[in-house]
Every structure is written in structure tokens, then in C-alpha cells.
């Protein structure tokens, strides 16, 4: 069962990663190499701190959940 779950997780990761690259390229295709012409207008720069925040929140989510539970009880 565990091996089966691990395989499903692996396939899910594969599908996510396989779709991420074409989507990223499609979204950013019109701007070519020139930042100024990018339709996102620099939003990608703003998205970086957001991505890092999501990464850190994911990392500490269990600790946060425990803290919330402790605070509520």
C-alpha cells in the first residue's frame, strides 16, 4: 500500500512538473527576452517573495497547526 501511494505521489509530481514548464513558457512567451515588453509588468518579481513565503509556510505548517491547537485549547 505504501509503495503504491508512493508511486501515485511520484506520478502526480511528474504530471505537475510536466505541465509547469509549458505553462510558464506559454505565459511568458510574448515578452521574449525583453523585461520591458513583458505583459506581467514586473509581477514576476513580486511573485518571488510570495513563492518563498509559500515555501516557508509549507515548511512550518505543522508547527503552526500545533501552535493554533495549543492556543485554542
Amino acid at each position, binding site marked *: 500500500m505504501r509503495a503504491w501511494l*508512493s*508511486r501515485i*505521489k*511520484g*506520478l*502526480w*509530481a*511528474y*504530471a*505537475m*512538473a*510536466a*505541465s*509547469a*514548464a*509549458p505553462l*510558464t*513558457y*506559454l505565459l*511568458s*512567451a*510574448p515578452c*521574449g*527576452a*525583453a*523585461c520591458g515588453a*513583458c505583459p*506581467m509588468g*514586473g509581477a*514576476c*518579481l513580486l511573485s*518571488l517573495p510570495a*513563492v*518563498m513565503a509559500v*515555501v516557508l509556510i509549507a*515548511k512550518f505548517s505543522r508547527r503552526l497547526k500545533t501552535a493554533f491547537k495549543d492556543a485554542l485549547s
Partner: protein
Amino acid sequence: MQLKFLDTLRKNKMRYISLVAGFFLFVAPFALFSRLVYFAIGNVADPTLHTICLRMPIDWMFSGRYYSLIGSVSAAFVIGVILLSFFLGPVFCGWLCPVGAVSEGLSRVIPLPSKFRLKIKDPKVTRGLRYGFLAGFIAVSVFAGFKIFGDQISSVCCRYCASATLQNLVDAAFGNATALEYWHTGGIMVLIGWLIIGGVLMFGGRGWCLFFCPLGAMSNLAHKAGSKLGMYRTEYDKTKCTDCNSCKEMCPMWAINDDKSIETTLCINCKECVNRCPKGAYSMRWGRKKDAGVAQQN
């Protein structure tokens, strides 16, 4: 922390010397290897890490631009790296690649506690993400090359290239002002993804190699095929293992499975596990497997 770093440095000194040599061999203004090759074939262009691009030939291969492959130094280089991986494992990734060396070095030098570093525990998930990205990369090359979406996608892999970013950083350090033109948002995203998220914030500092390097992924596919046929590889002997998990802590590619066997689609033959294991449970080996005590590689 400092003692652990020095111990790692001492045990793997040959690899770290080789990685430093890789920097001088491939990155301009030094680029000694590239200069030698250009001199030998009479190419008068200025060799940089970018001109022997490790990604474009993969893009050309799948986008139908086969004419670009003919006579190209970078194509010969990529094919050479993949062939080398078949026989000796991904030694270019583990022992020479300056891009992986810089992020791994940064990760080792910055004393960030382990609890702040990210790691995917299941190598199958890591493998899925790595080869999923490779599949996406190939799909984009096919879309662009055969104009499946018209001209909407052009060749964009240079915009997300850590090799170009490293070369431009070094160029800027040596006072080459033209390198500044490169700093568009794609370049900055790569810099943060490669050095901060993939380097400092990930165990082993090889996040970029693990998830975004098509050459690394293809090298590992060649290594998997080679190791099945008995080529040079890392092997695990479960009879010697004491489950101390020091191998898992050290592996920069997260290539050690729960049963401690090596995931050949991720392993770069860096020998960190071989040098770290106090009981010698890991060894480098040629030839087909005969010993029943040696775990089957995945």
C-alpha cells in the same frame, strides 16, 4: 557545524578540487577546456560557458533543428557528457559542473540549520518532478520547433538558464559591462531559484540540478541504463548497514531510498555516501551484480 563542514571537506577533497577545476575549465574568462577545443578546431569565437551551452543542443534535438547540431561544439559536448554518464555515471554533474558546484558550495558554506532547509523525503516524488520537468522542456522544444502554436513560443530556454546566469555574474565581476544587459526578470528569477531556493534553502544545494537541468536528467537516464548493464555505479551492501542515516544526510541529490538503496535516476556518483558511511556499506563498482547481499538498485 563548522567541524562537520571541515570533515566533509576533508573526506571529499578530491571532488571539491575537481569542482573548482571545473569552474576554471568551463567559465570565461578562464574557460581553459573550451579555449583548447576552440583552438583545436580553429574557431576564433570567444569561448564562454554560454557558447558551449549545455541546453540548446537538447532544444535543437527535439525542435527539429538538426542542422544546428552538425559541427556544433556544444552538441558534441552534450553527447559526450551523456555517453560518459552511460559508462562512468554522471561524473560531469558530480565532479565538474560549475553551476551545480556554485549552488552546492553555497549551501555547504552557509551555516543554515537543517530545520530551515527543504528536502523531499521520497525519491520517487523527486524523480517525478525531475523527469516531469524534462518532459515539459522537451514538449516546449517540440511546440516551438514545429510551430504547433504558431509563433507564440520562441526558443526561450536561454531565459531560464543557470549557466548563462553564472557566466554573466562572473563577467560582471571581471568588469564586462555588456553582461548587465542580461539582467531581465527571467535572469533574476533564475538567480533566486538557483542560488537561494535551490542552493541555500535546499538540502545539499542541488535543487536546480534536481528539478531544472535537462542535461542532468538525461545524463541520469543514461546512467540508469548503464548501471543496469554493469557500468560504473554506486552500490549498497545492506549486510554492512547500521541504519545510522548519515548517507541520507549527506547525499546532495536525495538519491538514497528508504531501504538505503541508490536511486540511479538521481545519483551523480559524487561518492559522498561512500566516503561518509562508517561501515563501508556503499562502494563504487563495475560489472554485473553477483552478490546476493547487495541490494538491487532502482
